[in-house]
């Protein structure tokens, strides 16, 4: 049994510290998955909702080893739901951005370009380029196969380069 699976088992048995440790380990992944889909200013609230939902439903998870994919699915669902309520997403992102330096505006433009890519690519690129996770970490934390992550990174980066040129 993996370290994560052991934490899941402990959390399912009512150990709040174990769930806190899962939060620490998966917060970046959930943050990235949500950030790829909804307005930046709404992300923190939705991340909290995702973990609250996971906490409430954790006992329904039969296979602790599936925790990563299960949590990522909750995050995608929550973000998709939230995104639909806040349509259009992009104007919200732009108008909510505080006036700032050229670098901040450039960051918003790049983030917008990433979000315009197909979902599988945008999510993986946000996890890699914003959250700073390696390909292997992305695979471990989302439940995707390393091969899928590698393809998503490769194709997504190719499309992103085309958009940024």
């Amino acid at each position, binding site marked *: 049994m993996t370290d994560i699976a052991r934490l899941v088992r402990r959390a399912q048995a009512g150990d709040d510290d174990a769930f806190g440790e899962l939060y620490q380990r998966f917060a970046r992944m959930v943050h990235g998955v949500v950030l790829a889909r909804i307005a930046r200013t709404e992300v923190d609230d939705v991340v909290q909702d995702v973990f609250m939902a996971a906490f409430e439903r954790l006992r329904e998870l039969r296979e602790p080893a599936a925790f990563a994919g299960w949590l990522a699915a909750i995050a995608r669902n929550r973000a998709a739901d939230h995104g639909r309520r806040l349509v259009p997403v992009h104007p919200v992102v732009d108008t909510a951005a505080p006036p700032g330096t050229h670098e901040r505006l450039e960051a918003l433009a790049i983030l917008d370009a990433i979000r315009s890519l*197909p*979902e599988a690519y945008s999510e993986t690129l946000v996890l890699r380029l914003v959250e700073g996770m390696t390909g292997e970490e992305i695979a471990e934390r989302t439940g995707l196969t390393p091969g899928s992550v590698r393809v998503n990174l490769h194709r997504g980066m190719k499309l992103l380069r085309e958009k940024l040129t």
Partner: protein
Amino acid sequence: MSDYLWDKRGGDPEIERIERTLHVFAQATPPPPLDLRRQPPVRAGVSRVALLIAATLALAVGGAVFTLLERRPTPVWQVTTASGRSTLAIGAWLDTGAGEATVAVADIGTVTMEPGARVRLLDSRAGHHRMELTRGTMHATIWAPPNQFFVETPSTLAVDLGCAYTLTVDEDGGGLVTVLVGWVGFTTGDRESFIPAGFAAVTRPGFGPGTPYSERTSEAYRQALALLDFSPGAGTTPALALVLDQSEERDEVTLWHLLTRVQGPDRDRVFDRLASFVPPPTGVTRDGIRAGDRRMLDAWWDALGLGTTSLWRTWSQQWKDNQPRTRR
């Protein structure tokens, strides 16, 4: 691919510059404290998925109900409507009428039925749960491993491969599935479609599942696919020309399915268009694809990077074993 993009080794000035620029949006380290006692925001105009998740949470936090579910020897499908809760027995029908219903699918997921939907529970046991949707719309979120949740419709069998999706059956028995997360398999006889997140597929009685298409495709693209799928021989040449012309890299899944759904010179044209996005891997030849060589088709699918066909084939065999006994 740059090693740096995968494992941060080796360096790549352009990617490093993007990383530095985007770092301002990253999750704080350590993340902010988690407040598990707060209430989720409830807003007007909440979507179907929100209702579904809220209903799931409501079931999950209902301690007594949860405990009962945990101890029950056989799976229970609990139905929640505006008028209260009940249990759906095997063989029983559920008509949502003017209201909406949320069904807890044993312990593997939830299904929200929209008003006007009609479903029946066909079977429910460990590792195998099956329902029938004869009309209306359902939204499913399934967290069990793939190939445990099946929905029969008048024109196909929908197989959950670990995902969230919406399935609609119209008055004529035709269907539409839209996948939000994961994959859904549509299968009727020897015809099968794999529909990934962001894609949709229609199904028609007498034909089975149509070719999956990205939700970003144009209406004309979808109409052309419908012509290819359900009106073979009637104006398929211009329809195929439109599909090939408008296909982008994201449409590899669509083109791969078309390889076995068009014949003769049309198959060559699909071959060329798909090859322009994903070159056929070693061992995959034009002659082989013309002949419908399953191993070559599988090898090309594997080259799309969407998962290996060995899994699909294993599941597909299980689907065939699970085909409905009667088909309208």
